[in-house]
């Protein structure tokens, strides 16, 4: 395997007494689409937040392009090429759609402390923002306040904000959460198109199995805070251990389960 783009080494996160992620190591290969799945409470969102920098691990390290970024502040992660989306739609609601995306473009540049120049004289960021909006299919809504977009539109805007930062890796936290079922395929097609055009690496936490199976190169399965299995979609679909977890096999203690408090 080539040098991983993003890597978690022996990550552990405890909230008070509860260990949400327990000694999990994970490597994301460049250019891959890597999904993290698992039943409720398996610790996948916590793992995701450890990778994205929202949480500091209790122990263990996170590496990006061979650099230890465990303690790098969130805002600097954006500058080195990491972009993350949120499970709950997380926009600037009163700003326009264009402004939402333009800010993300601006964040990468050095114009933010130009106090007395009008924003609309910086044409390059606006063009870039419009380009990204075109890509996700929101160009016509550019002038609307973000808050009036329908839910599906908001998820697309969320994606556009991410792409505007030119990330090398996209960390997507349940991008289809709360979407009406008929809108899901469209969003996934957008994500897939974006990825093929831009060559970004994608890390995805998702519960919609159709999405996961269709888009992923690799899948990591979490269970009770630990890594249960990893492999291609076909391998995972055929893995009896995974089947059991999803269907709820009752293990006896000898099967390697540890009681959790």
């Amino acid at each position, binding site marked *: 395997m080539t040098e991983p783009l993003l890597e978690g080494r022996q990550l552990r996160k405890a909230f008070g007494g*509860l260990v949400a992620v327990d000694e999990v190591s994970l490597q994301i290969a460049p250019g891959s689409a890597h999904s993290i*799945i698992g*039943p*409720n*409470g398996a610790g996948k969102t916590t793992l995701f937040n450890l990778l994205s920098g929202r949480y500091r691990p209790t122990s263990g390290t996170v590496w990006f392009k061979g650099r230890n970024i465990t303690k790098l502040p969130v805002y600097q992660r954006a500058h080195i090429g990491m972009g993350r989306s949120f499970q709950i*739609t997380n926009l600037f609601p009163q700003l326009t759609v264009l402004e939402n995306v333009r800010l993300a473009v601006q964040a990468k540049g050095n114009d933010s402390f130009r106090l007395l120049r009008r924003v609309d004289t910086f044409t390059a960021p606006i063009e870039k923002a419009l380009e990204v909006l075109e890509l996700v299919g929101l160009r016509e809504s550019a002038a609307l306040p973000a808050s009036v977009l*329908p*839910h599906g539109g*908001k998820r697309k805007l969320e994606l556009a904000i991410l792409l505007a930062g030119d990330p090398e890796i996209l960390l997507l936290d*349940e991008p289809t*959460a*709360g*979407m*009406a*079922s008929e809108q899901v395929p469209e969003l996934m097609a957008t994500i897939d198109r974006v990825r093929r055009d831009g060559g970004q690496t994608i890390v995805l936490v998702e*519960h*919609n*199995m159709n999405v996961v*199976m269709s888009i992923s190169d690799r899948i990591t399965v979490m269970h*009770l805070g630990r890594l249960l299995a990893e492999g291609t979609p076909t391998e*995972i*679909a055929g*893995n009896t251990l*995974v*089947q059991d977890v*999803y*269907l*709820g*096999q*009752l*293990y*006896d*203690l000898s099967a390697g*389960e*540890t*009681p*959790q*408090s």
Partner: protein
Amino acid sequence: MNDSAPVLAIENIHTFIGQFHILEGASVAVQQGGITVLLGRNGAGKTTTLKSVMGITPPSQGSIHFRGEPLAGKPSNVIAQMGIGYVPEHRAIFRELTVKENLQIAERKRGDLARRGDLIFDLFPDLKRLYGLPGGNLSGGQQQMLAMARALVPENHLLLIDEPSEGLAPVIIEQLMRAITRLTDHASVLLVEQNFRVASRLANDYVIVDEGQSVASGLIANLVNDDALIQRYLGVA
């Protein structure tokens, strides 16, 4: 199937959380003295179904009847007073309160706890030993027992139990399952459970929820043999 009117009848409800369209037409019935389990993948809308019954996220369309009475527009405290006990996901016990206080707060009439004490300690003998401890000091399994015990303090006709087995060790799950089975002498149960094995052993009826809709329902005994249905809605592939 039971011929008498169901204790709880959820008909075609739609529920929004903010702009999230979570439930897009879900129907569920719970029979008198029975256990109905909601099955489905993460994020399918099972928890929201319970919260819709409880009035925490009231549905915008459709109807919910409890013992023949409509629940629409009632705040959750009134719904609880009608005789519904709620055991939410992640237990939601009060960590700063002692076990005793956690039970006391659930009293609806003076002396509820005294009346139900025997039943509760019979089902969950551990709690007697932990009576004076703060809830936050309990283990996950003990907290789950406390949360269920709390729903048993007043006389409830229906219990809504959300993922009782989540994150618990198998031995504890066994203990909880025995308790739930015995609960049905006192109340009907609407259960959310991802663990299919647990669900199939406990429930009489099932409803599969997928993408906010109830897509299949029937006797759990029939589902166990229906591999196609299981694979389609509950499996990995």
